[in-house]
């Protein structure tokens, strides 16, 4: 009798849990599913059911000098910041992994801190410091600021890859007479490359998604895509934003799949290596 009521109770809990999970997952995905079809609407309002399908908002995007310019700006800033952040971040992660040096924990906490310091503080600080140097209203200032925001992602992902790395491989290479640089190029780098690449993807996404620093620092000539969308929401919201958003979603999907692939590959390579 007692076990009978318990299983009913358990089953009810199970059903409740699954229903809640379903509701939360729908909550997480709905906004994205709502905005994608709207970008293909032939009407001009954020309204369902769609009056018809068309590509007019994509045409609008690709014929608008504002939107195209902002896409170009985002790519220039994003790619430059990614290259810088990936180089600096990978070197730093290798250093942290290589040997313990004094105050290492503190140094690591500092290297990661741009991830947790509120971005408005970063933005105001950089704006304030770069103004006398003439770095505001130009690409360089924005690139430098985005590099600080992206570098921690690279440090974390490369460190995670290195934690699975077998140090005896390096010793083996060196005992066979390989020079340090050869060991790095032929042994270390190929094995950590997936981690470096996924760090780069994170750094690019961080820059590509960043709006607060761009809001303060970018002049009219450096408006990035998120900055342009922000202006679009505040001024008059048109469905071109939905088209821009859909393309951003597509880009994030590609990036997400890339990271998943790199992660599996990294796990496999470390296994082969170890």
């Amino acid at each position: 009798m007692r076990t009978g009521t318990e299983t009913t109770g358990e089953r009810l809990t199970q059903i409740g849990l699954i229903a809640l999970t379903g509701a939360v997952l729908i909550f997480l995905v709905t906004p994205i599913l709502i905005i994608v079809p709207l970008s293909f609407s032939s009407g001009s309002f954020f309204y369902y059911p769609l009056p018809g399908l068309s590509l007019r908002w994509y045409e609008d995007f690709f014929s608008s000098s504002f939107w195209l310019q902002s896409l170009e700006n985002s790519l220039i800033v994003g790619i430059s910041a990614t290259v810088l952040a990936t180089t600096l971040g990978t070197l730093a992660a290798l250093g942290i992994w290589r040997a313990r040096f004094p105050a290492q924990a503190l140094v690591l906490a500092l290297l990661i801190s741009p991830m947790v310091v509120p971005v408005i503080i970063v933005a105001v600080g950089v704006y304030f410091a770069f103004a006398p140097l003439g770095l505001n209203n130009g690409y360089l200032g924005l690139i430098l600021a985005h590099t600080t925001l992206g570098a921690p992602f690279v440090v974390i992902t490369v460190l995670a890859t290195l934690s699975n790395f077998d140090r005896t491989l390096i010793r083996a290479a060196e005992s066979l007479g390989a020079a340090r640089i050869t060991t790095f190029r032929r042994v270390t780098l190929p094995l950590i490359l997936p981690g470096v690449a996924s760090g780069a993807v994170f750094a690019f996404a961080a820059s590509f998604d960043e709006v607060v620093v761009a809001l303060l620092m970018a002049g009219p000539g450096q408006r990035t895509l998120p900055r342009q969308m922000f202006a679009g929401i505040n001024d008059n919201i048109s469905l071109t934003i939905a088209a821009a958003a859909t393309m951003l979603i597509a880009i994030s999907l590609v990036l997400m799949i890339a990271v998943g692939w790199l992660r599996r590959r990294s796990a496999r390579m470390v296994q082969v290596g170890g």
Partner: protein
Amino acid sequence: MLRGAAASLHAALASVDKDAGNLRRALRKSRRREQWRAAALVLPLFVFLAACFVVPIGAMLSHGVIDPDIVRILPTVTDALKSWDGHELPPESAYAALITDIRAAREAGTLASAATRLNYDVPGFRTLLFGTGRQLPAELSGSSRETLIAIDPKWGDRETWAALRRAGGPLTDFYVLGALDLRRDADGSITGAPREQRVFRDVLGRTLWISAMVTVICLVLGYPVAYVIAAQPPARAGVLLFLVLLPFWTSLLVRTVAWVVLLQKEGVLNSLFLSLGIIDEPLKMIFNRFAVYVAMVHVLLPFMVLPVYSVMRSIPASYVRAASSLGARPFTAFWRVYLPQTLPGIGAGCLIVFIQALGYYITPALVGGADDQMISYFIAFYAGRTVNWGMAAALSIMLLTATLLLYAVYNRLIGVERMRLG
């Protein structure tokens, strides 16, 4: 023969000893060299972050505690007021110094900056300073004190002079106190700001409250989701995690746009409810606290689900089964055996959600109303629109202190290198 063997053994042992010493030294040296190499690899990023992150933020924050304007623009009166006790009106020499300074500042065109700074403290100071500058006669007929009080009776007010002295720098607590709705009175003791001027305690309280509410909602929604996903077979868990991660990877701005589209007056939800006949007129679902909670929870929920999920996945099912076989009811087994083991995940999730929520700016700015703006909004407001660097810096000091304290807790409990990404 035997003695010879003993001697050579001695010599051999001594040389082993010496070798060991050499070896130890060599080892220490190589370890030291290795440490230098490691530090040299970290150096480029360290220097870069120092130059483009630490120094800029530090310089900006310093404006919350320094007061360089008045001592630069009105130097003689600042100097004269140093010896003033503040109990009665300052001596004639201070009045004379003020007249000298105002004349010099008018000539140099710097009076406006001084007026702006003093106006932060005492509203109306700008008018007072400019009015006085205009009406100063070329030749004084009486004492400096009489002349100034004749131009504006406020120069006969102790509070006016106290404000001038307070702004004399070089250090000040004016902005930091101001960020807590506190001020110094004429005698220099700390009092609350007048009730109608109190804004920042509300802002600080609201920022903490919204962040706490978002964290609690994320925990209540995220914990069961992580639990259900962790109980699935690997393939299905992978699909469900993909759904959790999809918004995580989608631009923050895109998601915020989506909520505007969904919740606004002519938006998707309202038109759906209207056409279904559930409501007769559009609900107000945006530009209020509700929209802020919805949009922020949506952005931060994955940060709760991921750490909780990864802890749950490492808990063997046998523990709960053991508890059940020993007669624990399902709830007891969950509460006493399962839940305590997930506490590290809960701690990590709550800390990271709360830390991020504290600094939120864009989401509340786009979907919240005037009463839903958090501290970041006011930092941007003072830095951008009113160019009051002191106030922007003081508010940044509050926000950064809270964030770094929690970051230190996170580092101690979990370790920064274990922060989970995607």
